[in-house]
């Protein structure tokens, strides 16, 4: 999906509206194991709750990465994860499909990229929101390190 990018003063904006994202059981189970959630769950059956931080994965989807990279800018910039938040109106269900709206805002002094996400059901009921703040640090190495 091609995001429209608009320049507004020192800020650049882009939006990826109405993406379809899923909470596939296999993907969620792998994430739970990687995020140490199964260690605390004990020896019982693996948990099926969607981890609170799971929606961050959707920023690495193939339809999102190009916009993320474009908003970070050309080589020579190291994105440093500065802050992150998640807010839930209702829990996400396993093996379900959701709508995801992403908004990217690039700001300067200091250089930052803020990505805001809103997750709703297919019937547009609000479920969750999240915000990712990346500080964009110039490097001599010309790194290309977007998530």
């Amino acid at each position, binding site marked *: 999906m091609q995001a429209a990018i608009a320049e507004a003063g020192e800020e650049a904006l882009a939006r990826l509206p109405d993406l379809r994202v899923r909470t596939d059981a296999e993907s969620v189970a792998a994430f739970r194991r990687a995020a*140490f*959630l199964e260690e605390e769950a004990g020896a019982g059956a693996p948990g099926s709750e969607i981890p*609170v931080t799971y929606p961050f994965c959707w920023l690495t989807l193939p339809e999102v990465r190009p916009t993320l990279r474009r908003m970070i800018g050309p080589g020579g910039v190291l994105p440093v994860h500065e802050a992150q938040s998640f807010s*839930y109106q*209702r829990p996400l269900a396993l093996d379900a499909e959701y709508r995801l709206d992403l908004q990217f805002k690039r700001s300067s002094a200091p250089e930052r990229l803020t990505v805001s996400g809103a997750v709703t059901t297919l019937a547009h009921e609000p479920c969750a929101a999240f915000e990712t703040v990346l500080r964009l640090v110039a*490097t001599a190495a010309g790194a290309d390190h977007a998530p």
Partner: protein
Amino acid sequence: MSLPPGAPVGDGPKIGDSIGKTEFGPVRAEDLARYALASGDDNPLHLDAGVAAAAGLKAPPIHGMLMMSCFEPALRRWRPDLVIARISAKFLRPVPVGDSIVISGRIVRATSGPEAELLLRLMAHGSNGDLAVLAEATLAPASRQAEL
């Protein structure tokens, strides 16, 4: 209804109560590779010592999101009847691969009644004691979220 510091919240937790400490790790390179695969965050900074060195780091840092993710199992261990309704975190310092992540926190605000919630200040420290992540989380009864 907000309660003053030290006030009891029914028979439950009090403002200032600790959630205890939960340690995850030591976090090995294979843990970072597993998290990169599961999350999609394959930033080579976390996976390649050469890239980390070029960025001025002695070793690849643990993903900030992996450290943030550790709050959830720590809170679940403390109060399995509560879920995270909101959480926000600031990533303050990198923690190198090979270190453990130690999660701790305290209740800073509590509300009672049908909209009962706990606000916690949470911390993730590396093995050397440096504060790596500072966070706040609002916890609500799991039963209430399930009703929505």
